[in-house]
């Protein structure tokens, strides 16, 4: 079974090639069959791998499949190899499993779109790249997949490229993440220079000795910081978070798969993968947690006031990834991955049902124009209730509770009180904005007429993800022992129960208070919102704490100014003379093009006469 590992990325890649070279000739059903089928096949293989892994774990807890040598430069011979261990298996399950559900949903969602097969070809390429990212046994391949998913994210955000705004959103996402990628690339160079290898296992083994000296500690601090920069960019954390809300310009399944479930969690995966480096640099590790904490609070406040249904979810994604970073910072590696998994379930569910709502309301995304949809869209409503519950971490019955509570407990147990309090407050914010979203969209008066979807590719993914978002998802325990080090507070006992009670009551309290205020004091709420101070705060929050404005002033405008200043300088003029000369030469040479064949032949003949004469007189 392990031999089939390569299929997990080969199948989507083949799907991509077929769809890309088919150029839409396959028709919608054919494209859907190829696009969904290839990911489905990958999911099946993954399921088999999971069964095998749990039943008969490979020696050393990891299986490596060397396909071929990629290149040979001096002593540097990276193998083209796939490595399967508990961590990558977990990621694989999320990518192919959730990915398959989203593909299935997308085959319903995208029907009738001009770029139907193009969409699936991008999606398949994305899945292939993401699988490659998590399976690569070498940081080089990880980086390869990293850039691959970035490319697919760019392509899919700008999928409806005819609207210029989508194109600029795609560019923004690409450029902002590129900043992080550059950090990461430099970090990898530094790592390779220090250790002479990029093979992940060797890095993890060599690092403790190699960085034992004072200068080594400085080096590992720098490397960890640079890797964090990459992770921050990909995972939309402070300060590179601004691209994610704009990325919602892509089709909703894209938002579900790439900008909620998989790609944006790549940063979490990267840090978990290279955890040894972060453990060697404790202050950087703590910085990871702080970044996560600040981001989750900022995103939580921002989500409170957003009016676009997808933007609310985008900010909540940022905030949830903030939780994961917080967990990483607190040393709760497994909890971070666990939350990554459950978050993939319930956030994919939320995005897909948001997609269902959007499509039912004729591509309306503004929640102020929705309302009372619970009657017309019962399935979407229940999905939102369960997914929102998981997001807000309603105790015991939702998947989100188990993972988030684990994070809070570990933060508390590890003595990171700052992180713990931030997380607790974030939980309150989460429950409030989640409740607000559900109340505004599904309750109140009906403002638009919605058409519910139908078909198996519509309800099956929602149903599966719905089940996974309940406590069922919380029962899945990723086999991470041996891959990631144990967290400080394993097997908590009474203290953990206390934390559970605290966080659970915070979540429930937030929901109840919000619902109560919404149903009983709508007038007071309105009056509060109308207050000038509240308006200012609202605007500030709405603009996501003004980061876009800040970056525009700080980076974009100076850059444009520089470009303008430089556009007419001396060098430019000097270079400009060359094309000018060429243009004149062109005008002259077009004169010789008379269109008369005999003229050309005569010049040939004259040339021949000259050449032969030269030969004759030379010797």
């Amino acid at each position, binding site marked *: 079974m392990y031999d089939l590992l390569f299929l997990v990325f080969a199948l989507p890649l083949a799907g991509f090639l077929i769809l890309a070279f088919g150029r839409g000739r396959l028709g919608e059903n054919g494209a859907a069959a190829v696009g969904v089928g290839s990911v489905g096949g990958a999911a099946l293989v993954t399921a088999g791998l999971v069964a095998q892994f749990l039943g008969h774990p490979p020696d050393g807890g990891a299986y490596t499949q060397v396909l071929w040598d990629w290149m040979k430069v001096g002593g540097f011979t990276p193998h083209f190899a796939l490595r399967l261990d508990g961590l990558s298996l977990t990621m694989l399950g999320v990518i192919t499993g959730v990915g398959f559900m989203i593909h299935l949903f997308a085959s319903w969602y995208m029907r009738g779109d001009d770029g139907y097969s193009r969409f699936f070809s991008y999606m398949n390429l994305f899945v292939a790249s993401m699988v490659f990212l998590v399976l690569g046994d070498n940081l080089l391949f990880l980086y390869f997949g990293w850039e691959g998913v970035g490319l697919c994210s760019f392509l899919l955000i700008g999928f409806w490229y005819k609207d210029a705004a989508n194109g600029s959103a795609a560019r923004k996402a690409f450029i902002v993440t590129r900043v992080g990628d550059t950090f990461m690339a430099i970090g990898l160079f530094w790592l390779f220079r220090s250790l002479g290898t990029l093979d992940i296992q060797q890095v993890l083994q060599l690092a403790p000795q190699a960085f034992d000296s004072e200068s080594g500690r400085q080096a590992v601090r720098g490397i960890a910081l640079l890797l964090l920069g990459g992770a921050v960019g990909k995972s939309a954390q402070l300060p590179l978070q601004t691209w994610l809300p704009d990325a919602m310009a892509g089709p909703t399944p894209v938002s579900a798969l790439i900008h909620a479930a998989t790609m944006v969690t790549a940063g979490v995966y990267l840090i978990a993968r290279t955890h040894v480096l972060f453990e060697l640099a404790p202050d950087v590790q703590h910085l990871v947690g702080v970044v996560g904490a600040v981001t989750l609070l900022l995103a939580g406040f921002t989500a409170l006031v957003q009016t676009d249904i997808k933007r609310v979810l985008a900010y909540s994604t940022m905030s949830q990834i903030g939780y994961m970073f917080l967990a990483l910072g607190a040393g709760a590696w497994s909890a971070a991955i666990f939350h990554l998994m459950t978050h993939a379930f319930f956030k994919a569910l939320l995005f897909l049902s948001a997609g269902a709502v959007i499509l039912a309301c004729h591509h309306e995304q503004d929640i102020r124009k929705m309302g009372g949809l619970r009657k017309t869209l019962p399935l979407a409503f229940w999905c939102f209730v369960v997914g929102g519950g998981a997001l807000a971490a309603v105790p015991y019955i939702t998947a989100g509770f188990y993972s988030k509570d684990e994070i809070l407990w570990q933060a508390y147990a590890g003595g990171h009180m700052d992180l713990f309090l931030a997380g607790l407050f974030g939980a309150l914010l989460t429950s409030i904005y989640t409740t607000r979203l559900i109340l505004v969209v599904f309750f109140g008066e009906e403002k638009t007429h919605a058409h519910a979807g139908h078909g198996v590719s519509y309800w099956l993914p929602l149903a599966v993800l719905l089940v996974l978002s309940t406590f069922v998802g919380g029962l899945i325990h990723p086999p991470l022992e041996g891959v990631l080090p144990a967290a400080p507070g394993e097997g908590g006992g009474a203290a953990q129960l206390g934390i559970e009670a605290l966080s659970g009551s915070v979540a429930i309290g937030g929901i109840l208070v919000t619902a109560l205020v919404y149903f009983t004091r709508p007038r007071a709420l309105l009056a509060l919102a109308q207050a000038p101070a509240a308006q200012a705060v609202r605007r500030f929050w709405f603009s996501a704490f003004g980061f876009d404005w800040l970056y525009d002033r700080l980076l974009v405008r100076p850059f444009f100014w520089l470009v303008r200043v430089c556009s007419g300088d001396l060098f430019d003029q000097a270079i400009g003379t060359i094309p000018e000369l060429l243009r004149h030469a062109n005008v002259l040479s077009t004169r010789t093009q008379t269109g008369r064949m005999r003229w050309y032949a005569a010049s040939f003949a004259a040339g021949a*006469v000259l050449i032969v004469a030269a030969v004759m007189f030379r010797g």
Partner: protein
Amino acid sequence: MDLVFWIPALVAIVATLLAVTNYNPVHGLLYLIVSLLAVALIFFRLGAPFAGILEVIVYAGAIVVLFVFVVMMLNLGDAVVEQEKRWLKPRVWAGPAVLCGVLIVELWRVVWPAGATHPLSDAVIDAPHVGVALFGPYLLAVELASMMLLAALVAAFHLGRHD
């Protein structure tokens, strides 16, 4: 003086000259055929019977036939002769003729320097020799040539269609 070479050579030169200067396309083509047959004879004399016979079969028997065929299809008649007479004024041909004369003199000086004689042999290189070389070291060239013929076939078919 090797008459078996020089007689066909003179015939070829004269016929070619007449072919390229004739007013009537059909007569020009007839002279061209004569020139080709004369060259075929030279091939026989040079010990290349296979090349000689191919020259007749393919050049004279197929390619020039195509020309005649096109002339028949266009059915130009006497008008074309009048037109050629108008086009072929001394003013038109004097310059190129001088240029070509210079080129001939130059070629004569270059390829036939005084005193240089590399004798040719009487040995016959027969069809089997050519065939063995053609399908041995030149196999790739044969494949390329066949591909070119296919391309020409497709192109001619496409161009020749009434649209």
